[in-house]
């Protein structure tokens, strides 16, 4: 990948990546995760760890239903959320004791406009010929910029001593373990071999559906129609819309409640959409600074 391949993203134009690959470009691949058929078996989490040789994430019992993974991070690239609700799956709650148990396998969204990729100063994060977003671990220098840039909190640094609320005021110079960021690669390596990603392969109910994005979007629309016709409560597509704040997800979802209930932002926007505004403000501020300095001499040079 040439150093300036990422320029396509700088322009931020949807699917701008395509040109940069010329005839190597492949159809954009992604996931449609249909949570209405997720049985919460976590096979996706395990398959991902097995395939990508990810270290375990610590043995912490949370009491948060059956979820002890809690969040996506450097050591968890799939995360199955469990939500227990006093509410029926479909229709009205007649006798009042209806229950439903929502399960959903979260993953990197492989955004059309990916903040992580936009802000990466080394070009370690790049757009593959499949339109997915991948970290090149041999290039990442652990600057950590992509971590707060992701509107979904997907990326994290591996094994970095976490920042304490009250840090020591002096810099810590000691060498850190690994120090790079990690996230879902959409099994870039498997895709080269023409294999579907490990998590999708392991999913027994096909809750995780892998394929060409356009085709997945059609399938999702039909699925939503069916569920709405059957009166499923809260059924909605999340990240399917190419017009949304990140230009649509490469890995989108069918949810049965509002996104925030699953720990997802209700209306994510890629930070770089406001970049012109930011640079303008900076330029004006810089100008003001210059004037300010000159102004300081208005009252005399000494």
């Amino acid at each position: 990948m040439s150093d300036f391949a990422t320029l396509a993203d700088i322009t931020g134009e949807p699917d701008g990546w395509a040109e940069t690959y010329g005839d190597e470009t492949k159809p954009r691949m992604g996931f449609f995760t249909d949570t209405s058929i997720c049985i919460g078996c976590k096979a996706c989490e395990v398959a991902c760890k097995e395939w990508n040789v990810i270290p375990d994430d610590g043995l912490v019992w949370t009491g948060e239903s059956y979820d002890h993974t809690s969040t996506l991070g450097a050591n968890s690239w799939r995360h199955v959320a469990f939500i227990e609700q006093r509410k029926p799956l479909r229709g009205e709650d007649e006798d009042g004791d209806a229950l439903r148990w929502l399960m959903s396998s979260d993953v990197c969204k492989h955004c059309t406009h990916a903040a992580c990729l936009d802000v990466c100063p080394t070009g370690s994060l790049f757009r593959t010929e499949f339109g997915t977003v991948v970290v090149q671990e041999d290039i990442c220098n652990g600057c950590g910029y992509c971590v707060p840039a992701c509107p979904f909190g997907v990326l994290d640094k591996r094994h970095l001593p976490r920042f304490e609320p009250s840090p020591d005021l002096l810099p810590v110079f000691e060498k850190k373990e690994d120090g790079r960021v990690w996230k879902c690669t959409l099994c870039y390596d498997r895709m080269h071999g023409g294999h579907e990603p490990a998590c999708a392969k392991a999913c027994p109910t096909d809750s995780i559906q892998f394929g060409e994005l356009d085709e997945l979007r059609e399938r999702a629309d039909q699925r939503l129609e069916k569920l709405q016709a059957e009166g499923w409560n809260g059924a909605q597509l999340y990240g399917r819309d190419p017009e949304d704040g990140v230009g649509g997800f490469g890995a989108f979802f069918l949810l049965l409640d509002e996104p925030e209930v699953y720990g997802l932002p209700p209306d994510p926007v890629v930070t770089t959409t406001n970049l012109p505004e930011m640079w303008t403000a900076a330029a004006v501020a810089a100008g003001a600074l210059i004037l300010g300095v000159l102004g300081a001499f208005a009252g005399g040079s000494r």
Partner: protein
Amino acid sequence: MTDGSITAVGSEMRSYYGRPILKEPVWQPEIPWYFFAGGLAGASSLLGLAARAAGNEPLAKAGLYLSAAGDAVSPALLISDLGRPERFLNMLRVFKVTSPMSVGTWILTASGATTTLAAGLELLDRAPRLKVLSETMSAVLGAPLSVYTATLVSDTAIPVWHEARRELPFVFGASSAASAGAAAAVVLAPEHAGPARRLAVGGVAVGNAAMVAMQARLGMVGEPYRRGEAGKYNALAKVCTLAGAAVLRTAGKRSRVAAVVGGGLVLAGEAALRWSVFTAGFQSARDPKYVVVPQRERVSRG
């Protein structure tokens, strides 16, 4: 058992067991110190060149040396923060305007080079033309150097940073100006430091004004500045900068001691300000309501 709901600004807000949606930054204490040092360096080089033009040689020297000092520690701080310090140079693989860190690294490198060259020549009193050239270059880079870090933090998903994208450059710019002025006021004899004192006082005034404006516009999202770690540093910053400015304004001219005390207070205050902004980001990422509530409002506004 059911999904953890927390109440935010009156409105019932739902979340996933109250867990964060965003990842906290993984940046270490080096970073706020870099904001401070880099800002000081940038503004100082401006101050120096202006002084040179105005014929205030001592102030010109001081400005140049201060910015050289700032430019010297900055990379050290940045590199030590990296997860893979040995890969610092990967920063120079690409140039991306979508990545303020990329842009900033180029600025810092260039400014570092020119400033050091100028300072060296100043010291050895050689090649006056080249010196002026490089001095001018470094001054030109000084303004962006002292404000871009605001853009760097704004260009993330962290609400308290991103939503402040308009004001933050002014806060940082003013803070840089104030630090530069104060530093010069400390090292110089009062009779040469008039513009420096004025710059410090002006910077403090503008900075605090910008801070007030910023928090006013942020509203609920600005809460971190009134709470916890960030709140403490914010208050400290106000007190120190205003007190310091007052001292400089009233007594800085007559007494060297007052200049040192006043300048010291301003410097401390500006450092505290950087820390306040820095830690506010962590607090903002930690609580999902700063993500959900505004985004929900945006959605309902349509």
